[in-house]
């Protein structure tokens, strides 16, 4: 992006005049704090950030174009590769959209399994986030503690779905297989383990004065800005914006379970941290409500071998671990979508980054970018 002479020019400018000199540094595409191939061009004045420009596309695979030539059964598998940390929920969004178009009634059992899997995914994703966030702030150890719990979820997923990361478990009409007979016991064991260990994180991270100083009042996003930038998920809820799709537009039987939408008014990085920790407790409570009440019956509705959506437009919104995922299918009545659009949460959340960190220090950039929970394949699609 920048030639070498430009680099030299920048460096000398900084030396000759501290006020006018702007130091342009490239954070990424390979950088420990960007968790993927995000490329930020940062304009600095000393340690203070003047501007941040994201450069995307290093792993843009044009999933939307690919989906135009895949059938309604096939395209779901591609979406696991978008937000790989909430692969289940991505699959669910697509399955729901196809079901909406074809008006397929999903059996109760499948709906409950879907919620269980979604919430397990959410916990796993938030666990990973807590660890990665702490690592962004320079504390390495919490990463290993959170991965210990995440590993258990991955094992549970592996047992039922046959995969640990890109599960491809949701299909139009239900789920691909039935639950593993051991599923309930293992989830219950996990709940016991999780609730006893999550306090460790509180002690290690949230009660640490350095962590609090690093995150309180950092990267503040007001409620109006959160809405205007289209932020969703824990980022918007950390600013006090109620935006949980599970409450606003319940899908897949979320209206039947009781849980709270966690809101924090402060809008800083610490609020976003608290939101995610509390959401994990909410997810655990949802799982506890359902794990002993999985209805008997089919795990999949009877569907035709070849799915054809009627002519029209279908939009589903689901709440992934990062925020609102929208799937917009435009159908011409064929076996493949005419146009498909994924409204990914990370893309909108990233657009608020410049606004949030302008004028703060480089360290704050990491503390803010960490709390946005960016998954780059989700942004690039």
């Amino acid at each position, binding site marked *: 992006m920048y030639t070498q002479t430009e680099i030299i020019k920048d460096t000398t400018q900084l030396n000759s005049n501290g006020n006018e000199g702007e130091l342009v540094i490239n954070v990424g595409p390979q950088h420990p704090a960007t968790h993927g191939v995000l490329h930020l061009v940062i304009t600095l004045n000393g340690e203070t950030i003047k501007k941040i420009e994201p450069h995307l596309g290093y792993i843009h695979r*044009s999933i*939307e174009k690919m989906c135009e030539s895949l059938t309604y059964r096939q395209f779901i598998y591609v979406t696991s590769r978008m937000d790989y940390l909430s692969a289940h929920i991505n699959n669910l969004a697509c399955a729901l959209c196809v079901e909406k178009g074809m008006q397929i009634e999903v059996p109760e059992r499948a709906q409950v399994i879907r919620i269980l899997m979604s919430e397990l995914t959410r916990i796993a994703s938030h666990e990973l986030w807590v660890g990665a966030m702490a690592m962004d702030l320079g504390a390495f150890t919490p990463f290993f503690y959170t991965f210990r719990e995440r590993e258990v979820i991955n094992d549970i997923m592996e047992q039922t779905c046959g995969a640990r990361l890109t599960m491809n478990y949701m299909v139009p009409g239900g789920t691909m297989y039935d639950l593993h007979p051991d599923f309930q016991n293992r989830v219950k064991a996990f709940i016991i383990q999780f609730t006893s260990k999550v306090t460790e994180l509180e002690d290690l991270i949230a009660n640490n004065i350095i962590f609090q100083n690093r995150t309180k009042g950092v990267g503040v996003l007001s409620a109006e800005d959160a*809405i205007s930038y289209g932020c969703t998920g824990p980022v918007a809820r950390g600013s006090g914006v109620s935006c949980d799709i599970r409450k606003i537009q319940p899908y897949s039987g979320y209206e039947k379970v009781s849980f709270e939408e966690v809101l924090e008014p402060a809008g800083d990085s610490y609020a976003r941290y608290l939101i995610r920790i509390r959401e994990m407790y909410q997810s655990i409570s949802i799982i506890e409500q359902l794990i002993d009440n999985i209805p008997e019956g089919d795990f999949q509705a009877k569907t035709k071998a070849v799915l054809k959506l009627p002519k029209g437009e279908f939009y589903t919104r689901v709440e992934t671990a990062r925020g609102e995922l929208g799937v917009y299918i*435009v159908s011409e009545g064929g076996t493949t979508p005419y146009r498909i659009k994924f409204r990914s949460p990370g893309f909108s959340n990233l657009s608020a980054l410049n606004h949030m960190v302008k004028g703060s220090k480089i360290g704050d950039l990491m503390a803010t970018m960490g709390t946005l929970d960016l998954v780059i394949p989700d942004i690039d699609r």
Partner: protein
Amino acid sequence: MQNEEIKEYIISQEPEAKFDETGEWLNVIINPLSWRLLAEKLKHADLQLDYLFCLTCIDWKTHLTMVYHLTSTKYRHSIVIKTDINRTAPQIETVSDIWRTAEFHEREVFELFGVEFLHHPDLRKLILTDDFEGYPLRKDFEDPINMIKL
């Protein structure tokens, strides 16, 4: 707010608007030239449609359709705005200063569909390389090297 009230309000602002209620939400089909003025009213006036949750474009081979999904975080009603634009030299006014999320979404549409957003503050390629030619999400885009079609 009910669809009828929304319709009434939009008709009062934009008499040429057409409506389509077959989908999940109320679809409003408008003229691209009147979009900018209507957008400002939609956000600030009675409807309070303050959240643009999806902005995209569809290539119909004869024309392009811009699709804006709007919702209100206060009243929880949603509408879809659609407007057809010319395919050879597509142009539409930006709404990135009304809903700031549109800034990135419009840049994405700009490079993948070639729609020029007038008065956009920073209309550059976001995902593709600067020297990339063609608009990948248009239906006639063919890439012989990285084939996407099966």
